[in-house]
C-alpha cells in the first residue's frame, strides 16, 4: 500500500493538517453511520493517514455513536490497522507455511539485515516499514515478498538485495 499521503507525525504544517481533517470529513460523509461501516471506515482512514490517528478514531466514534473503546478495540484487533505512523514503503515478507518450508526465514533475515529493522518496525526516517505476513496466496512461487502492489516470487537472499536496491532501500 504505497501511498503518497502518509502522515509526517506532529510536525505536519497547519494547512496540511487542515486538508487531512477535511479529507476525514469527506470520508465520513460518504457513510451512513452504521456500526457495520466501522471496518471500511478505518481502512479508508488508514489509506489516507497511513495509520489511525487518535483524533480520527475519536471522530469516528462520535460519527458512529459508539464508545471510543469500541473503535480502539477493533483498531487493535485486526493486524491490518496501525496506531502509530509507519514507514512510507511497506516491505512485506511472507512467513506462511509454503514460504517457511522454502526458506522464508532466510529471506526475512536478509530484509532485516538490509533495513536494520525487525517485523513491525519502521526505519527512523519513516521511509520503510517491515511486516511479516501469513500468506499472499502466491505459495507456488515461494518464498514470496511484496512491496506495494508488486509481488516478488521465487526469492533468494541475493534477490532480496536486488529488489530492495530497486526501491532504494539497500544498505
Amino acid at each position, binding site marked *: 500500500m504505497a501511498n503518497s499521503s502518509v502522515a509526517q507525525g506532529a510536525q505536519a504544517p497547519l494547512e496540511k493538517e487542515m486538508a487531512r481533517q477535511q479529507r476525514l470529513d469527506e470520508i465520513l460523509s460518504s457513510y451512513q453511520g*452504521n*456500526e*457495520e*461501516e*466501522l*471496518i*471500511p471506515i*478505518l*481502512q479508508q482512514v488508514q489509506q489516507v493517514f497511513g495509520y489511525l490517528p487518535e483524533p480520527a478514531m475519536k471522530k469516528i466514534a462520535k460519527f458512529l455513536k459508539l464508545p471510543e473503546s469500541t473503535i480502539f*478495540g*477493533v483498531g487493535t*484487533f*485486526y*493486524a*491490518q*490497522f496501525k496506531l502509530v505512523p509507519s514507514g512510507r514503503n511497506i516491505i512485506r515478507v*511472507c*512467513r*506462511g*507455511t*509454503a*514460504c*517457511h*518450508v*522454502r526458506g522464508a526465514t532466510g529471506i526475512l533475515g536478509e530484509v532485516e539485515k538490509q533495513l536494520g529493522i525487525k517485523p513491525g518496525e519502521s526505519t527512523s526516517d519513516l521511509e520503510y516499514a517491515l511486516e511479516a*505476513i*501469513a*500468506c*499472499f*496466496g*502466491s*505459495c*507456488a*512461487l*515461494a518464498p*514470496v515478498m511484496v512491496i506495494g*502492489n*508488486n*509481488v*516478488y*516470487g*521465487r526469492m533468494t537472499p541475493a534477490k532480496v538485495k536486488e529488489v530492495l536496491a530497486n526501491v532504494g532501500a539497500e544498505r
Partner: protein
Amino acid sequence: MSFADIQKQAIAEWQALHDSRKPRILVGTATCGRAAGAEAVLAAIDKELREQNIDAIVIQVGCIGLCYAEPLVDIIKPGRPRICYGNVTPEIVAQLIEDYLVKDNPRPDLALGTIGDGGVDGIPNLFGLPVLKSQLRIVLRRCGFIDPTNINHYIANGGYSGLVKALAMKPEEIIEEVKKSGLRGRGGAGFPTGQKWEFCRKSPGEEKYIICNADEGDPGAFMNRSLLEGDPHSVLEGMLIGAYAIGAKEGYIYCRAEYPLALERLRIALKQLKEYQLIGDNILGSNFSFHLKIKEGAGAFVCGEETALMASIEGKRGMPRSRPPFPAVSGLWGKPTNINNVETWANVAAIMQRGASWYASYGTQGSKGTKTFSLVGKVERTGLIEVPFGITMRQIIYEIGGSILKGKRFKGVQTGGPSGGCLPPDFLDTPVDYDSLTSAGSIMGSGGMIVMDEDTCMVDMARFFISFTQLESCGKCIPCRWGTKQMLDILEDIVNGRGKPEDIELLQELAESIKDGSLCGLGQTAPNPVLTSIRYFRDEYKAHVEEKRCPALVCNALISYYIDPEKCQGCIICLRSCPAGAIKGGKRVIHVIDQDKCTKCGTCLDICPPRFNAVVKTSGERPAVPEEPVPISSAGKTRGGQQ
C-alpha cells in the same frame, strides 16, 4: 433483455473471437503469474506487436494451475491448436512472436504443450502430460480459458444457465438436487451442503442471509484466490442459486484484504451482473430479488471461522461465539444465515448447470466430485490442481507434482494447514477423501497441501504452526489463549535444546485439554499438527530432547558447522565471506571455525566451492577436527576432493 438474448449475444461474441482471422495471445495474469513477471511479459508483447505491426488479440486470463512454469503465454494462430509456453520472459516472448507469428516456427523447444484438437509436430498434448492427465476440471474448467473480466465469456461457456434452470424450479427441489449431488462443504469441515441449506431454509424468519467465505486463511493455500481471479462469476452464480433456494434476499462475500486482485475481479463481476440485471430486484422477471455486498477482511485468521466472520461483517472484533445457536438459526444480526466456502459455491453452479447425477458420478462413496488443492512446498511442479476424490497422495505428489525437489527424500505432506496434520510416506497410497484423511489423523481442510522433504524438521514445523495459531488466537477463551502459549513455550524449549524428557507427554496432555476446552475450531484444532507429528515422527522429538540433535539440520541452536580438514584446500573464500569473522586460516592453510564466534548463518556452506565441498553442517556430536589452522602440506595426508 431476456436471458436467451443475453446468451445469444455472448455466444456470438465468443464465436467471433474464435473465428477471428487474427492470432490470439493469452497471458496468465493472476497473482501468481504477476509474481513471476507476467506484467513485464505483457508489456513486451504489446511492444513487439507494435514494432512488428501485427494485429493480434491479447487476452489476460486466469491461472490454469501450472504455477511452476509461470509466466505462461498461450498462442493461437487461426486454424491451429493453442500452444502453451512456460517460463516466458520478455525476451522469449519477443522470439515467439518473431518465430511463430511472423515465420511460422512454433518453437517446440519452448512449448509445454498444445490444447485442443489437432497437434503440432514436436509438441505434446498439454492435458496428456503427467501434470494434467489425472486431473479433472469442474470448478477450474474455465480458469485460463476465459477473460475473467468479461461476463460474456462466462455466459458463452454455460454460465448462468444453472441459475436460469434453478429459477424454474421450486426452492425445495434445488435443495434436493444439491443433496443428491453429494456436495460437501469445501471450507474444511465437509458438512453436506444441501442439508445445511435445508436447515436455513426451514429456519423461521423473513430476513435471511447468505455468505461466501473467501477469507482463505490457511497459509500455503490459494485455491479460492485463483478461482476468484480466474472465474469470479462461477462463485456469484452459485450464490444466486443458493440465495433463491434458501430464501435469502441479501448476501455478503467476505474476502481477505491480502487478495487485492480477487477483490477487484469480484467488483468488476458484480458490476456486470448489475448491468445485465442478473442481480437486484426481480431477477430475470421472477419475483426473486437478491443484493450482494463485498466485504474486505482486515487481517485476522480467526475471521475465517463462521461466527467470527459474521461479527467482523457487523463491524465488530472478529471473535467467535459458541454454537449452538448455529448460523442457520441465528447468524448475521441474529438472522438465519447460510455460509459456504468459495469453492462450494462454484460447485453449486456446476451442479445446477449439468445435473446432480453427473456430478455424483465423480469421486468416492462419501466424497463426491472434485477438490482443488494448492500443491506447494518441496515438490518439483508446484501449482493449483483439481482432482477427483479418491485419487491417492502418491498420484498427486509424484505424478502431478513430478517429484521431490532436488531428488531429496519425501518426508510428509501437510493437509488442513494449522488445523491439520502431516502424513508420513506410509499414507502415500491412501485415497484422498474426507473420511480417509480424518482417520489418518489429519483433515481435508480447505486444500492446502504442503510437501516436506528430509530437510524439513517436524518439530520445527510443529513449532511453526503453534506459533501461528498462538498469534492468531483471538484471546476470548483461556484454553486457546494460554494453552497454545504453553505449547509454544515447550516447543521453543525443545528446538533450542532445552527440552526435557517429560515434555513430549506434557505436550500431548496439553493438546487434549486445549482440544476439549476451546470455544471455536481454531483452538479445537490448533494442537493437531503437534499431535500428528508426535504420532508419526516421535523419533525426531526424541532426538531433539534426548540427544539435543536436529536430524533435519534445521534447528539453529542444535546445529554447528565445521570444516573437513581432509577436503579443505585453504582457498580463503569462506574465510573472507564469513560475516562473523569466525573462520581462521590462510592460503593453503586448513581453515577452522571458531565455534564461539560462529552465528550459524550458513554463508560458508553456501560459498565453499562445490569441487571442495569442505564445509559440513551437523547436529549432535562433532567429529574431532583440528582446533587451530594447520598448513595443508603438514597435514600429511593424500588430498581428497582435489579435481
